């Protein structure tokens, strides 16, 4: 995959990608707490499936008893039994 100019620049300067490139950053604690920073919108939310739109791809989280613990305009905190995280 060919890297864009901006991407090469961030790698050269060692800058955090989520800030410059607006890429999503996922932080997962075990399988029960997931923070997704830099998302752009919630596409679907049920207690089994969550789909979130990010800058380039859609993140799909599956599991059971999923709850959106907090929602702000920059991040979402998901709690529940997470079984699968997918990029679509």
């Amino acid at each position, binding site marked *: 995959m060919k890297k864009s100019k901006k991407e090469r620049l961030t790698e050269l300067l060692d800058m955090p990608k989520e800030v410059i490139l607006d890429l999503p950053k996922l932080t997962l604690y075990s399988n029960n707490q997931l923070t997704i920073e830099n998302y752009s919108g919630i596409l679907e*939310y*049920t*207690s089994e499936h969550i789909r979130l739109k990010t800058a380039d791809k859609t993140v799909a989280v599956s599991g059971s008893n999923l709850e*959106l613990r*907090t*929602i702000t305009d920059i991040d979402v905190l998901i709690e529940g039994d997470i079984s699968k995280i997918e990029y679509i």
Partner: protein
Amino acid sequence: MFLVKLFNLIQGYVTIIIEGVFPERFLNICARRGIYLWDVKRTGKLSLSANASVRGFRLMRPIAKKARCTVRIKKKRGIPFYIYKHRRRKAFAVGAGLFVLLLFVMTRFIWVIDVTGNDILSTETVLENLERAGLKTGMLSGKIDTEYIRDKMMISLEELSWIGINIKGTTAHIEIKEREQKPDLFPKDEPCSIYALTDGVIQSIDAQNGQRLVAAGDVVKKGQLLISGALDSKTGEGVRYVHADGEVMARTWREITVPIPGYAEEKVRTGRSKSKHMVKIFSFYIKFFTNDRISYTNYDRISYVKKLSIGKDMVLPFSFHYDNYYEVEIIRRETDRNEALDIARSEAKNRVKDILVVSSVEEESQDTLKITYECLENIAQKKAILKGETNDNGENT
């Protein structure tokens, strides 16, 4: 997380039910407009529940319209709602108000005076003087003029060299530095001589002023002139009197005879005990026992006081006093010779504890122990010069 929850409770929040075909859209718009939502749960096919602040909820009506959802409140939580709900319960409100007021008023007074650093002075004397200077328990802490009290204390107690008064919460911390006790001094400007305090053999003699009359190794008797303050003038006529000063270290012998005890005393708890518990409010005691008397002849008393306080310094004028009395029996136990000797030895040692002991010789009989301690001590003692005294009992050096 706990702090966030507490903050939410103080501010008040609502649990809302969002119903619509596409409630995710509602969540997205809320997020974009900076309305904070938390604990979002799916409750049914078409509904979600979520928590939002009261302020956030007020902004939701247009969003709901835009997202084609209905929003309704399921539950109101937090202190503002609680107060609103109980606004008609007057006694409750008065009680809560009174509690806050009482707490506020109580913490404005001094309830504890904590004296530290006193060695010679007893705490009672210090407290007594403090009361006279204008600091006692039950005073408004704001009205205390620490500088005035400090000055008063310095004047009234001459043992003080420094006093610090710190008022922290309901506690007044009194820190004391005592003046170094003056040694028994002979007036500096009056002539005097140095005499031997006890019998001994001179180890070293260091005369800072005056005329040395004995040398190291000399045997001296009690009261013998060691350093003379009467100097022969250089011209050979008349006598000049000076204030003799110096240190005379000598080996001395002290004989101490102590009885050898035939038994040792021991306290043994019989297992019977009594407890007296009290609650102290201001200076009144509320007793939680009926019989005031302790019928035991010998007992150990173990007391424990628990003071009610907020933090460390906010002590309130309430305390719990626990007194436990354990009956003890004093048992006289026959001791063997070695044990008895040990007891006698420590008793003898106790009597010479302030003196440097070089060596000791023991001599024991059936019921007494005689120990001769060889000590090293300063035997210099200043005394006024007898007029007309000359150095005829020593040779001039």
